[in-house]
């Protein structure tokens, strides 16, 4: 590992015995104790994730909303201060630049983007600026922690005050840190399917806050969780991962993200997506479980009637159910729940079937 970037918690992860991997150019913990235990802890109690590798892009100026409307698939005009929204950036042909979370704050929008796409997104936004808009890459300034699981609310309330309990899903509040006004952003969001929060804070408070959250979290059985369990948790919810399930080779409609694509407004890619929708989708991202024994992995071919018809984009054992599960693109005609498909796992053609997503019930605060 040569020139990998490190978060403010790198030394903590190392001291805690984390297995570190290169993730999008960052040296990140994949697990501490083990992926399965960390997954279960998040579903049953609480887990805390270091997501400081993710990017933060600020968009402001009098024409910020109009500009965002011209690049985002979702309708940014519907969120008010203190609200967050999931959205997608598309190329002209309708394929995906990135998926991201937008939070509207007084006088600005904050975009949290995938670590692997920070430079690409920033350049994309800059090159499409219209009107009086400023786009700032502030990724190097902030750390992000996610606290997720049934005990997350108790932990965050014990540390940040009771007011966070009433924060609705996809809402955010700014809090002071010592003498700094509005230094911390707490959002009721996550990528696990459990209730939980994401805390965005300046790097210089990161280690201290992380340690204090663990002190407070001890009696709620809070454990650190690595990227391995983050992946299995999101997979069980069929949450798309950029680079796996969505990319510049896929469009949001076939990825099942039509709910964030508002074709009644114009944005980069809207014309292409309209025509794709009118023609009908050729393929769809489906959730499947293995019938035969075998763990599907990314890039395993999907086989129907002896022919390769698609590809697995994510696959794993599901720690919650013990079943072997995956996400894959299949022809629309084979996307119905219950359809029998087969997965070519390293030369073995193994039976699988399309199932309803999510694989386990969601417990987010609605």
């Amino acid at each position, binding site marked *: 590992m040569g020139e990998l970037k490190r978060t403010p918690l790198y030394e903590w992860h190392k001291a805690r015995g984390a*297995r570190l991997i290169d993730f999008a150019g960052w040296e990140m913990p*994949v*697990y501490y104790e*083990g*992926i*399965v*235990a960390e997954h279960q802890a998040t579903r049953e109690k609480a887990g805390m994730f270091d997501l400081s590798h993710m990017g933060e892009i600020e968009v402001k100026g009098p024409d910020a909303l109009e500009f965002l409307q011209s690049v985002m698939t979702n309708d940014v005009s519907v969120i008010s201060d203190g609200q967050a929204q999931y959205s997608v950036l598309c190329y002209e042909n309708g394929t995906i630049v990135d998926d991201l979370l937008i939070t509207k704050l007084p006088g600005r929008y904050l975009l949290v983007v995938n670590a692997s796409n920070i430079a690409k997104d920033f350049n994309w936004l800059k090159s499409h600026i219209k009107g009086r808009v400023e786009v700032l890459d502030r990724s190097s300034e902030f750390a992000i922690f996610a606290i997720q699981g049934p005990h997350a609310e108790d932990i965050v309330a014990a540390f940040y005050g009771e007011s966070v309990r009433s924060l609705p899903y996809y809402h955010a509040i700014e809090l002071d840190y010592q003498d700094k006004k509005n230094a911390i952003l707490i959002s009721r969001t996550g990528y696990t399917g459990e209730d939980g929060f994401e805390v965005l804070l300046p790097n210089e408070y990161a280690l201290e806050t992380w340690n204090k959250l663990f002190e407070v979290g001890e009696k709620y059985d809070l454990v650190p969780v690595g990227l*391995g369990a983050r992946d*299995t948790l999101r997979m069980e919810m069929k949450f798309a991962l950029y680079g796996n399930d969505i990319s510049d080779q896929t469009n949001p409609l076939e990825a099942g993200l039509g709910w964030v694509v508002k074709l009644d407004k114009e944005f980069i890619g809207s014309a292409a997506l309209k025509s794709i929708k009118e023609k009908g989708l050729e393929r769809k991202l489906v959730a499947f479980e293995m019938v035969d*024994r*075998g*763990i599907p*992995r990314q890039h395993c071919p999907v086989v129907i009637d002896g022919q390769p018809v698609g590809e697995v984009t994510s696959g*794993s*054992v599901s*720690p919650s159910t013990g079943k*072997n599960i995956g996400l894959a693109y299949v022809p629309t005609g084979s996307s119905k729940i219950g359809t029998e498909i087969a997965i070519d796992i*390293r030369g073995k053609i193994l039976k699988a079937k399309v199932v309803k997503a999510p694989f386990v019930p969601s417990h987010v605060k609605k």
Partner: protein
Amino acid sequence: MDIKAFKFTEDHEWVRVEGKKAYIGISEYAQKELGDIVYVDLPPVGERFAGGDELAEVESVKAVSNIFCPLSGEVLEVNEELTHSPELINKDPYGQGWIAVIEIENPDELNDFMDAEDYDNFCSTL
């Protein structure tokens, strides 16, 4: 389990000899490297493997690893327990986590392996 009775390969398999039978598994170092083991694909009993052939597949949540057959010979027995409890490899790699038993064809092949002490030294260089 007396670790002195085990021999090791550079691919982190172990061999424990009982008469003409060789028990085969993976080392403590290997199970730690792999993390939570969630799937084991066992070889068919009765099949013959040459030393260095792929004997079994072990999968953790994140990755697939091949287990190579350290010795030439026929598979006499496999650890069926691993089908339902693959985590036995993590919990007890030298005992309940054994993978297969091979009938030793050529005892000379045993000379190629490291003893526990040499293997420890080898791991510390990785």
